[in-house]
């Protein structure tokens, strides 16, 4: 979009000029709407689960902004000549079941004939204008909490290559289809300063967006970052997706790894995620309480992974 002039007005609270997960438009002093859209090509073979994952992924942006998703529309690209229409039905059923789980009303949609199958949602959510969470507003001393383990990009590459075991496919399919709704509900009761969801740019790519322009830095403790063990195995076999290398090439200048950090872990911190967890920046005194409460709610793999530091500014140190 660079080079295009985008009109705006004072009701656009979060717009095109920020790198945030969704746009926010203020309706009144106590109500704003959040709008987001996301769709992609299949990542798992099972159409029903693909539908669930695509829906969970699209809804995630609303949760990351501190909002509650309310309505959605289906977006479909379907190769009618090559595929049986029953496959589309299963995808839509998967998406619909995920929307029901999220208490979101499906109110429409649009489909086009396409050479490649694609599915996703456009979602609208509500948020109080004073309680919007963006990638900005970090404070020195804040803790960072991650709510899902990393490694879905590597494992999706292993699935594409036909080398992933059935158990692993089952495990990450469920992980990617898990809504961040419960995390968002717990998060609303805490003084959270900033939040984003981890998707295509990987943990370090999304963290770099938070740090960029903040005047502050971040120190991560790699031993506390949840990573799927199978992802380490597949990364050692050379199954990193090309996106991980792109993310690394783009953001590596902002990152300083201590020499003790294993090269496989360095790469996995750049692994692009599908429907990844939320990365929550929270006051230091509340971080452990938040993680305890998330664990009690069954979000077992959430962890405090690092802290915001005042120097060096706009760098990410990984120990």
């Amino acid at each position, binding site marked *: 979009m660079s080079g295009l002039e985008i009109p705006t007005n004072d009701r656009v609270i979060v717009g095109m000029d920020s790198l945030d997960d969704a746009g926010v438009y203020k309706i009144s002093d106590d109500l704003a709407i959040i709008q987001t859209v996301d769709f992609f090509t299949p990542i798992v073979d099972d159409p029903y689960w693909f539908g669930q994952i695509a829906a969970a992924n699209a809804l995630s942006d609303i949760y990351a902004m501190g909002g509650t998703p309310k309505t959605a529309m289906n977006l479909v690209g379907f190769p009618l000549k090559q595929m049986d229409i029953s496959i589309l039905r299963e995808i839509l059923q998967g998406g619909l079941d995920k929307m029901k789980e999220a208490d979101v009303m499906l109110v429409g949609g649009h489909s086009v004939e396409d050479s490649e199958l694609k599915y996703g949602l456009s979602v609208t959510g509500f948020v109080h204008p004073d309680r919007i969470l963006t990638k900005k507003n970090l404070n020195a001393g804040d803790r960072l909490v991650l709510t899902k383990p990393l490694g879905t990009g590597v494992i999706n590459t292993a699935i594409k*290559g036909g*080398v992933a075991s*059935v158990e692993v496919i089952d495990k990450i399919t469920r992980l990617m289809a898990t809504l961040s709704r419960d995390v968002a509900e717990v998060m609303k009761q805490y003084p959270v300063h900033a939040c984003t969801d981890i998707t295509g740019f990987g943990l370090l790519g999304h963290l770099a967006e938070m740090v960029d322009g903040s005047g502050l830095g971040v120190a991560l403790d790699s031993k506390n970052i949840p990573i799927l063990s199978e992802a380490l195995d597949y*990364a050692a076999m050379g*199954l990193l997706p*090309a996106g*991980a290398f792109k993310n690394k090439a783009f953001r590596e200048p902002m990152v300083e790894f201590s020499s003790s950090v294993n090269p496989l872990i360095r790469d996995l911190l750049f692994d692009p995620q599908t429907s990844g967890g939320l990365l929550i920046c929270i006051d230091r005194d509340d971080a452990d309480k938040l993680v305890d409460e998330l664990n009690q709610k069954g979000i077992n793999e959430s962890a405090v992974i690092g802290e915001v530091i005042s120097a060096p500014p706009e760098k990410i140190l990984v120990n």
Partner: protein
Amino acid sequence: MKEIDARGLSCPAPVLQTKTAMEAEQLNAVRVAVDNEAAQQNVRRFLESQEFEVSLEKDSANYFVIGKCGEKTLTQPKAAPAAEARQTKIMIMIATDRIGYGDDELGLKLMVSFIRTLKEMGPDLWRLVFVNNGVKLAIQSSESLADLKEMEDSGLQILVCGTCLTHFHLLEQKRVGETTNMLDIVTAMQLADKVINI
């Protein structure tokens, strides 16, 4: 040195092509050509995981990964121990839970007896693969479970098709063998000296 041309392919295809070539023949030196850096790094990782010594080269448009195996290196990822290498490698693929057509009750009994008697093949029996209805022999309620466990404990590799277990909703009930995929099954067929289909 074996040359592998994986140019024009994106990840994970270059790694898979290298893996397939190495499993098909005993290679102790390879030179893999790719056209992007991500593929070069991934092939390097793969060769290192196979204990090759790896060096990287680059010309104007191509990237190369050169791998040479050290003295202790085995070129197959799941290479058999040296003592076993001289024996015939027999793979048996079982795609049913009963033997033959006619009387089903008889067929089921015959299968139990067949599996019990397989031990007589001794160490030549190298891999036992269960697909389709055959996976029902590897679950909790199977009459052959004790025999299969005994064979697995004595070193036989038993592979059970994961797609099939999922299809029959039996993934949780599998009690013996490793869950496997079609790539492992096809690779095993290629490495076996003899494949017997039941």
